[in-house]
């Protein structure tokens, strides 16, 4: 992405190679309370600073390592020029960037970084967090992170304290103190790593295996193949369908199990994991439902939801942060995390199935001919989903309330996430009662079901991405709210078109 990269030839290129080679990926580092492979930490930091995990086509580990080594051994290594992307027009003008410059070189920022941070803080207190100020803050944070990497303070090496083998952290800078040459420093790093591995094993390397396997890509591909096979087969027990379905489910399961093993907790702690979980649950529930009711449309819906969720994980990393991080103290309770969050996520997944089935009917009735039988049938399928979804959501809300009562002493506190989950429950219960009362006959029940999913999206994403930004108009341009706005716009356009079209059908009928 945005990057100008100049790797200047160094007098002892051999030393560079020996210092930051590919095997350095496996070195253990500490970050945010977790031990992880250097490659992962380097990719995360480089992604933050330069916007890409492979700046200038060189691996993140090498770049990360070179930044540190170039500062420690300035005679042996030439400094790398790292470019922080600048996109906002105001900032581009302020930094005097020409059109072919993607961003600003860190070396230009570092001398005046304090001043720049002050300016950003002043701008924020004066005008609030406008998009240009937000980017400026991000740029200064990136430059600060760079200078931390350069000084060696960001590179935290897990070392063992003498007697009881308790892990403590040593920064690269501390380790540099008695290293005269890069070879010595490298030797010290590897020896510390060996000591750590003898005591605590290689478990941290799972994260590297997981990252390098790109399992989410494979899971997405498997879901796509299964969907194509399902579209072409009408038999649910066809071996090709069963095989591709099994592959998709197994790959999802593997991703989840990897994350459980790596983080050591229930995989339901952030937006990334709930989207992953919802995709998985939607697929499994859909498979079970389609088996029970011998109904392929469930399976199609489940595979589509699964694919959408995996696509979101793959393509919107700015909205869904894939990093595995340490948890805040109050969430450190695996029982409640596993039950409460899973139950709520399951309800989202099942509601997503009903949303897709309802919309499929709406689209069919707008663009193709439908009949009363299809209408009645789609409504009955959605109704099944709604019942399951409501049960999961009610259980999830209750478990959440009991957890809150147990940890904070309040059953209910009108926190926005709580309130929105209750709104969602009321919306769906309202639809259920509407169907019973006869107010919502099938031709209204389906659009209502489709519309109701917007309340799920509000609870799931809107509370974090729209309400949390305080509804500022300029907060709206960001990933999360833009995504929501697009879906809402699509949904309400579809509903309005359906309203017009179905009205015509109704008039023709009479």
């Amino acid at each position, binding site marked *: 992405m945005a990057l100008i990269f100049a790797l200047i030839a160094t007098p002892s290129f051999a030393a560079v190679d020996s210092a930051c080679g590919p095997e350095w990926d496996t070195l253990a*580092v*500490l*970050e*945010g*309370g*977790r*031990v992880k492979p250097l490659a992962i930490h380097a990719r995360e930091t480089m992604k933050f600073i330069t916007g890409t995990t492979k700046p200038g086509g060189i691996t993140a580990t090498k770049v990360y390592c070179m930044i540190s080594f170039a500062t420690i051994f300035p005679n042996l290594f030439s400094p790398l020029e790292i470019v922080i992307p600048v996109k906002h027009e105001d900032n581009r003008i302020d930094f005097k960037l020409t059109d072919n410059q993607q961003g600003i070189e860190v070396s230009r920022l570092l001398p005046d970084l304090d001043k720049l941070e002050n300016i950003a803080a002043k701008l924020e207190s004066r005008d609030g967090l406008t998009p240009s100020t937000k980017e400026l803050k991000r740029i200064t944070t990136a430059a600060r992170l760079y200078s931390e990497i350069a000084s060696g303070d960001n590179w*935290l090496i*897990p070392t063992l304290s003498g007697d009881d083998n308790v*892990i*403590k*952290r040593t920064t690269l800078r501390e380790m540099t103190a008695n290293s005269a040459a890069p070879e010595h420093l490298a030797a010290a790093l590897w020896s510390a790593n060996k000591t750590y591995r003898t005591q605590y094993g290689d478990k941290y390397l799972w994260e590297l295996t997981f990252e390098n396997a790109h399992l989410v890509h494979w899971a997405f591909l498997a879901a796509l193949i299964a969907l194509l096979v399902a579209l*072409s*087969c*009408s*038999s649910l027990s*066809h*071996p*090709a369908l069963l095989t591709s379905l099994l592959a998709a489910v197994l790959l999802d399961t593997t991703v989840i199990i990897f994350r459980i093993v790596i983080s050591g907790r229930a995989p339901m702690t952030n937006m990334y994991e709930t989207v992953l979980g919802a995709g998985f649950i939607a697929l499994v529930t859909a498979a079970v439902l389609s088996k029970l009711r011998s109904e392929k449309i469930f399976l199609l819906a489940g595979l589509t939801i699964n694919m959408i969720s995996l696509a979101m994980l793959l393509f919107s990393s700015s909205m869904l942060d894939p990093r595995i991080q*340490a948890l*805040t*103290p*109050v969430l*450190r*309770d695996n029982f409640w995390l596993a039950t409460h969050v899973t139950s709520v996520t399951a309800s989202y997944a099942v509601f997503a199935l009903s949303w897709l089935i309802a919309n499929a009917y709406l689209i069919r009735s707008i663009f193709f001919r439908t009949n009363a039988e299809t209408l009645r049938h789609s409504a009955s399928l959605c109704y099944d989903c709604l019942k399951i979804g409501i*049960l999961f959501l*009610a*259980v999830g809300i*209750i478990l959440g*309330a009991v957890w809150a*009562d*147990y*940890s*904070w*002493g*309040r*059953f*209910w506190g*009108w*926190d*926005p996430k709580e*309130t*929105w989950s*209750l*709104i969602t429950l*009321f*919306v769906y*219960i*309202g639809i259920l*009662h*509407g169907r*019973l*009362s006869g*107010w919502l006959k099938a031709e209204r029940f389906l659009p209502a079901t489709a519309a109701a999913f917007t*309340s799920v999206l509000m609870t799931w994403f809107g*509370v974090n991405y729209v*309400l*949390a930004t*305080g*509804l500022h108009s300029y907060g709206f341009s960001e990933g999360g709210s833009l995504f929501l706005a697009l879906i809402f716009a699509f949904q309400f356009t579809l509903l309005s078109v359906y309203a017009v079209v179905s009205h015509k059908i109704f008039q023709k009928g009479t």
Partner: protein
Amino acid sequence: MRFLASLKLAIIVLAAMALLMTTGTVIESKYGADYARLAIYNSPLFLTVEFFLFLNILFAALVRLPPKSRLAGFYITHLGLLAVIFGGFLTMIYGIDGGIELESGNIISLARVQGSALYLRHIGDNELHDGLKTTALPQATDEVFPNQIVKLDHYEFVIEKYLPRARARYKWQASNANAPSRYVTLVLASAYGEQQIELSNTDETSDTATFGPLEITLLPNVKSRCFERAALDARTNFIFSDEHECRLLNEDDSANSHNTNVKKVRLGHSEIDKVRIESHEGEKIFYPDLSTHPIVGKYALDGKASAQLIPISSWNKTPRLVLFEDERWAYGSRGKWTFSDLVLDSPQSFGPKNMRLRFHVESDIRNQTRLTEWRPIPPQKIEATPPRAALLRLNKGSTPFEDDELWVSDQERSVFRSKTGEVFEATLAPPVHRLPFAIRLDEFRLRTDDIGSNAPSSYESAVTVFFSNNAVSQHLIAMNQPLKIGDYTLYQSSYFPSSNGNYGSILTVNADPGRSLKYAGSFLVVTGSLTHFLQRALEKKRKATANVQNDSQLGAHFRTHRDTLLCRS
């Protein structure tokens, strides 16, 4: 009755609640949780809708009596819902949700709860009166006129106005009080920045301020000449000054003189001086380490008395700027004092050259009374919590006050003096709930054992609980590990840096009479809906097996046929 039990009412009520809650979350994101709670969730409108929800569920169940086994799931679910709503109602009315801030060693048996209350205290002539009256103020989102009557001893006040959000405005009035008043506004500047400082002689706390390590003192009743004499004499320990005299007390004579007496008394863990002085106005008692003002009654300081005692020997230890009654000022550091005239508006330099310390007097107002008025302000963005204020008026029982508008706020202690010398003190603060036990923090432990990160991984409080029957027990309260004492449950909620450099612990105290109902109700809701859906599913299956046995054969055949055409695997 029919309508109350109808599905249509259910839909209307559910839609209304969903709409109100949506509004609530939007308001919350703009003006904060407290405002949203008052404006929506605890508002009469919302409670009315909730009441209709309750009625609707109740009647929906009642009209479906006598019981039919087919509706078992329905009855259980709706009974559960009634229990949850009623439990929530009990919590709202009788529940207690408070906070305790504990510093290591303190014993506390009061929990702060939500809302605000008026604390009104009557201070007698020469003795601290025990009469303290706490009156809860209405939970309002905007300016209200409660006209509540507050009786204290023989006096009666009316709360005329309560402003949950307010901004202060000063107004000046010619003073007719016995003691001349003085308000000084200084602007202090150093190499690092400027600060505006307000000093006044109107009560015993507002005559001192700090600016970095520098202390600034307004000596309202002390003339510079008196101070100068003492400053030149290194043996002086204390300066006593009032309208009649200026007396210097030395180490030698202070202990044995017949009209002065200095002794050490214990205060907590430290020893402080207690000075008794026989003056023209009678005996005065000072604790000069705490204040230059004499005490009245047992504990209260008398900021209005002309008598002041300055512990000059301990003042010599820190740099200090002093403003005197006679429009002169002095700067002292390590016992060296310089004296100058006070000039309005022109900057005056003092202190070490490299610090570039200077100040100027922005205003020096004398013999005027400053009255603070409060005005309501619109709801604010979440970040700032605006001050609250209330307006009192004396109804009967006392001679009139200097001003008949008596403003109270949560920003300061207001002091009202009647023309005949009665003194009342008032402030707004959160109401407190007295617990049937007392609690002491023995140790607060903050753990950051996530290596490579300084973020706390857990925190916990070791506490001792004292009961009225002299029983004592020790417990540990941690995240996800609350402590139950009788009806009360204590939770670890947060922590704060305390004055002694350690951390203090913030606990949540909670008593919830609706808890068991809500738990039982929740259980019923889940069991009921499960039962309901299972019953429906079984019913459907019975019907399906009866009807559709024959005509699915052809369809199945057709599907298999299409499969062989499309999936060539």
